[in-house]
């Protein structure tokens, strides 16, 4: 039974009408009152920038915060492959329902039906909005938008801008945000990091932020606080996240009462550049879109020593095509990742570390693109060199930047030799628990985009993160925030010398001083690395009871050591990246424990959460719908002490089945 504290506030009615009906009946704030209402937006990625811009356009006074030097740097910028939308421009049978269905199924039936359906409904508006902003999506010769396919779907519904879709979408949202900054409707605070949230009479009323340039603590009031601060994949130290990506904003909110949903649901992306050494600071994704044209294989022989191009066709094992003929190389990410791990663990891995598989473009470069170009150019019976040359040109256009990046990092040319790839932490489906309005369990505090848990269940499909971030920011929060703010129109702006602000600021200050004054010997970075190692080994792609139990103990020990032996150089009242990092690592050290606890508690395998004890004979994940079809929402009590609340998931519009991509 759903915990009484978790009211998802899902509107009544048939799934296809919930959102439409809700939108037309929700309480509104009149334009004159909007001017008196202030909203704080933390984070300026797709969710934050789009929310800040849209709310400011509506008339609210918005204050936006980002820790980077500019809102345009938020890590949404690094998303490569594309954004899904149920436009059905390709006439291949796509629809809102199909996108909804694919997303719920892809998420291994652990997401909230109503939210996902709403996401699918607004997906088409997102594309319209972005194109209107001047986002240069790929187009065909007739001037129409192009699509490609992504994992877990059998239609082409992914819109893209070469391998830089996230960048183009974010720059669109950023420009909308900057437009409002120029108009004075948004006050932008870059190089500011939220270090705590201020709660007055049970409602979120502001934040304490540190000006990272001067080191000063600053207080900001808002009638509502929107956390759009992204995911927490960096708890693993090595991930495809940006170096600065962190959980701090969400974690502070969690410790002030916001429940944390499904913390153990982590996405391991199958196609990343493998680790090359101890010095490695982050991992780089090679877009899932590459699986449109790249075929994944390993040698059929163990401990193969020949170079990839010297291994003949019949000695290659295209294991995804072999195991999943229906979806082939485009199975969802969790499945592709586990399959790669399975092959490498069995001794078929390639490269120096044997922890990699091949992603090979040669077949499609020649047979798909080379031949198509040749026939477009009326070249009859083209020879192999011609096909390769023509194919390269198209591949360059589609993925040029990714190929260049791969070459920069590895020193190998993927036009000539297959890429070597391996799974890496990429995204976190878990996040702050939110209701249908995207409000956390703290009134007035919202979580949008990757920071919330809501739409992707236990596994996110490719090209859906951008969709969700923009859906939340452009189309959901501008409507749903009215439900709360309409009752706040009488609340005057609270002066920031209110005792609650003073008290929280004091706590933040004390914490910074504590970090600074430990005066130990080890850097924040070194603790982060050690935490990451524990997490990857014991709470990574495959988890088991023993490992998780050990991990919890190890993390507690590490945390103790951290607070005893940390060294933070520099001062508090100056630009000090070491201090910033120390605070973030301190929060990761707490989050890591909760993730392990959640993973331990969820005694089933689903999506990205794979418990070795729960698998089918063929190694597929074995869900336990009877006992675990719920969202874990964790309430923080005190250090190492949480209470689990369950939001039971009900599927009225989708037939639950074992996921099958064969």
């Amino acid at each position, binding site marked *: 039974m759903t915990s009484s504290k978790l009211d998802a506030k899902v509107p009544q009615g048939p799934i296809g009408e919930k959102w439409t009906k809700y939108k037309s009946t929700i309480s509104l704030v009149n334009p004159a009152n909007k001017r008196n209402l202030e909203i704080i937006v933390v984070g300026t990625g797709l969710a934050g920038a789009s929310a800040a811009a849209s709310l400011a356009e509506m008339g609210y006074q918005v204050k936006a915060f980002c820790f980077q030097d500019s809102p345009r740097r938020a890590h949404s910028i690094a998303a490569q492959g594309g954004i899904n939308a149920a436009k059905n421009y390709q006439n291949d049978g796509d629809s809102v329902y199909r996108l909804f269905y694919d997303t719920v199924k892809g998420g291994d039936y652990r997401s909230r039906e109503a939210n996902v359906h709403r996401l699918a409904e607004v997906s088409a508006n997102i594309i319209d909005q972005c194109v209107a902003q001047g986002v240069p999506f790929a187009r065909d010769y007739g001037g129409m938008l192009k699509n490609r396919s992504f994992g877990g779907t059998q239609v082409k519904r992914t819109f893209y801008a070469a391998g830089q879709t996230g960048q183009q979408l974010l720059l669109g949202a950023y420009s909308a945000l900057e437009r409002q900054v120029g108009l004075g409707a948004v006050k932008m605070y870059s190089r500011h990091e939220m270090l705590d949230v201020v709660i007055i009479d049970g409602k979120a009323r502001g934040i304490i932020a540190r000006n990272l340039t001067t080191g000063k603590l600053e207080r900001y009031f808002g009638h509502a606080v929107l956390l759009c601060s992204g995911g927490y994949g960096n708890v693993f130290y090595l991930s495809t996240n940006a170096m600065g990506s962190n959980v701090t904003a969400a974690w502070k909110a969690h410790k002030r009462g916001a429940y944390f949903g499904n913390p153990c649901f982590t996405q391991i992306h199958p196609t990343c550049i493998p680790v090359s050494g101890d010095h490695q600071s982050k991992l780089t994704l090679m877009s899932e879109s590459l699986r449109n044209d790249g075929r994944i294989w390993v040698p059929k022989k163990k401990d193969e020593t020949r170079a990839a191009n010297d291994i003949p066709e019949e000695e290659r094992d295209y294991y995804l095509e072999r195991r999943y003929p229906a979806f082939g190389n485009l199975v969802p990410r969790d499945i592709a990742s586990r399959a790669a791990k399975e092959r490498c663990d069995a001794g078929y891995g390639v490269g120096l570390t044997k922890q990699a598989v091949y992603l090979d473009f040669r077949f499609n470069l020649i047979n798909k693109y080379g031949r198509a170009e040749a026939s477009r150019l009326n070249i009859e019976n083209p020879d192999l060199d011609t096909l390769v040359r023509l194919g390269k040109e198209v591949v360059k256009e589609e993925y040029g930047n990714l190929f260049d990046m791969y070459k920069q990092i590895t020193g190998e040319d993927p036009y000539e030799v297959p890429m070597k790839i391996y799974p890496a932490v990429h995204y976190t489906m878990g996040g702050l628990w939110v209701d249908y309005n995207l409000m956390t369990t703290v009134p007035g505090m919202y979580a949008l985009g990757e920071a919330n848990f809501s739409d992707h269940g236990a596994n996110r499909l490719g090209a859906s993160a951008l969709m969700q971030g923009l859906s939340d920011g452009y189309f959901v929060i501008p409507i749903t925030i009215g439900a709360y703010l309409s009752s706040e129109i009488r609340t005057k702006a609270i002066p920031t010398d209110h005792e609650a602000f003073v008290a929280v600021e004091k706590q933040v200050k004390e914490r910074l001083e504590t970090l600074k004054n430990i005066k130990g010997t080890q*850097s924040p970075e070194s603790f982060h690395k050690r935490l990451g190692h524990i997490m990857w080994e014991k709470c990574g792609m495959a988890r088991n009871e023993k490992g998780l139990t050990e991990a919890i103990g190890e993390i507690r020990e590490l945390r103790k050591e951290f607070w005893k032996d940390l060294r933070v150089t520099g001062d508090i009242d100056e630009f000090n990246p070491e201090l910033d990092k120390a605070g973030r690592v301190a929060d990761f050290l707490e989050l890591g424990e909760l993730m392990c606890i959640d993973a331990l508690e969820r005694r089933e395998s689903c999506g990205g959460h794979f418990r070795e004890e729960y698998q089918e004979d063929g190694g597929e994940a074995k869900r336990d719908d009877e006992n675990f079809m719920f969202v874990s929402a964790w309430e923080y009590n005190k250090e190492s002490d949480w209470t689990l609340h369950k939001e039971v998931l009900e599927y009225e519009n989708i037939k639950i089945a074992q996921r099958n991509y064969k």
Partner: protein
Amino acid sequence: MSNENMTIHLKVWKQKNTGSKGHLEDYTVNNVSPDMSFLEMFDVLNEELIHENKEPIAFDHDCREGICGMCSMYINGRPHGPLEGVTTCQLHMRSFKDGDTIVVEPWRAAAFPVIKDLVVDRTAFDRIIASGGYVSINTGNAQDANNLPIGKERADLAFAAAACIGCGACVAACKNASAMLFVSAKVSQLALLPQGEPERQSRALSMVAQMDAEGFGSCTNTGACSAECPKEISLDNIARLNREFLGASLSKPE
């Protein structure tokens, strides 16, 4: 891939804060793997400095995938170092030799004041965008995305201009610290697309006015910006901006 590790000597700009004077300081990093990125070498150095209880070097970085535009080092006289079309984070140590001395400085421009060491303040770019680098369309006003066809050539040109990551290497490379390549990339992107048409004239005028107000220099067409741009933004865009600006100046009613 080479496994032979190198010793690298660094001369790095150290500056406590905006107001203070800076200087170049010498460092040596041992055991540098050719597979390390340039920033990872700095990570290693900083770890050593912290270990020795010295202050690490402050530098900007975030995505380390060459797309966020945050990293910004002027390496041996070139923004983002010796390679073409590459950001600092994507520069790897295999581009250097054992025993090399590398001079690392921050972007230098009046409009980009140094915050600390190699970290500079690039909010001038945000203000330029805020002055007109957008299409004024409120959320919810958009028509269907395929209503306005955009020919592939034009779409590709707009995309090439939009690839700018706003890192500021163009300003750093330019002897005049001019921001023309940055401004022209945005003006071009939107001038090429039908969606940008309604505000085409006012956009060019106000963005150039803001660029000038920020204290960037004039473009003298040396081409250093484009040569150093990690996204290889073309000088065609600067010509287009000149065109847009002049056209707007001459024809837009006051």
